[in-house]
C-alpha cells in the first residue's frame, strides 16, 4: 500500500523532534516550539506512535504535586523517516512549513 505524504504539521513536528533527537519532549512545549495547535499536535503524535516512529515515557515532573508528564522522542525508524520526509519536502519545494 502506498504511504500517504505527511501533512505540513507532521513535517514541522518531525523537524522539531529531529533537532534534538535524544531529548525527551513534552506536548505543551512542542505546541509552543512549533506553533502547532493542541488539537492537531496530539492526533499527529498518536499516529507517529502507532507507526512505531515515536517512543513515549512517563517522567516525574519538575513541579511538586503535578502528575507525571508524558514525554516523546523519535525512534531510530522515526529519525530515518523524518530525514527522508523532510528531504523529500525540500525537493518538492514545500520546506517552508507553516503550523497553520
Amino acid at each position, binding site marked *: 500500500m502506498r504511504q500517504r505524504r505527511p501533512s505540513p504539521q507532521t513535517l514541522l513536528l518531525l523537524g522539531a523532534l529531529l533537532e534534538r533527537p535524544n531529548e525527551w519532549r513534552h506536548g505543551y512545549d512542542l505546541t509552543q516550539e512549533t506553533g502547532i*495547535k493542541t488539537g*492537531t499536535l496530539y492526533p499527529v503524535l498518536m499516529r507517529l506512535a502507532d507507526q512505531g516512529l515515536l517512543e513515549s515515557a512517563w517522567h516525574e515532573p519538575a513541579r511538586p504535586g503535578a502528575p507525571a*508528564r*508524558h514525554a516523546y522522542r523519535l525512534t531510530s525508524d522515526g529519525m530515518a523517516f523524518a530525514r527522508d520526509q523532510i528531504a523529500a519536502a525540500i525537493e518538492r519545494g514545500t520546506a517552508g512549513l507553516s503550523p497553520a
Partner: protein
Amino acid sequence: MTSGFPQLLCRLARRLLPTARQPWADAMAAELYQIDDDRDALAFAGGCLLAALRERIADVDTRFGAGLWSIAIVAALCAVIQLVCAARGVAVLFGARDGMRASLVAAPDLLARYDAARPLVVACFLALGLAQLATAWFLSRDEMRRFVIAWALAMTIAGFAVLVQLSIIWQLDGVPSEFHALLIEAAAVPLLLGWYKRQQALNRKAKP
C-alpha cells in the same frame, strides 16, 4: 492550572477518547498542570477536546457502530410503517372504511379474494413489523447471528406477503409500493452491512 473550565474540557476529552487512547487523555491532562497562563490553559484544553473528537471520529469501532445504528434506524422506520399498515388493517377488520375495497366493488371476484385474504395480509404486516423491529434491535447491539435469523424471518414473511398479494391481483402493477420498498431494503441492508464489515476488516488490518 489545576482547576476550572480547562480541567472540565480535559475531562470531556477523556470521555470522548476511545478506550485504546486513554493514556493520551492522561498525557494531555498532565500537561495542563504545567501551564500558568489561564488563556493558554483554556486554548490547550480546547485543543485537547478537539483532538479527542478527531480520534473518536477516526475510531474504526465508532464508525462501524454509527453505520450499524444508521441501518438499524432505517430498519426500525420500515418496521413502524409495517406496524401502521397492520393497525389500519385491524381497524378495517373491525369495520373501519377501506378505500381500496370501495374501488373494487365493480369487480365482485376480485373483491371476494381481497376480503378472504385480508386477515392473512394483516397478520403478515404485523409479523413483518415485529421481525423488522427485531432486526433493528439486534443490529443496534451488534448481535449479528440473531440479526441474520431475524432478517431471514422478515424476508420469508415479506416473500409470503407478496405471494398473498399476487394471489389477489396477478399483475405487478397492482403490487403495493411497500413491497417495492421491502425489495430495496432486502437488497440494500445486506449490501451495506457487507461493505461496513469489509471496511472494518481493512481498517483493522491497516492498524499496526
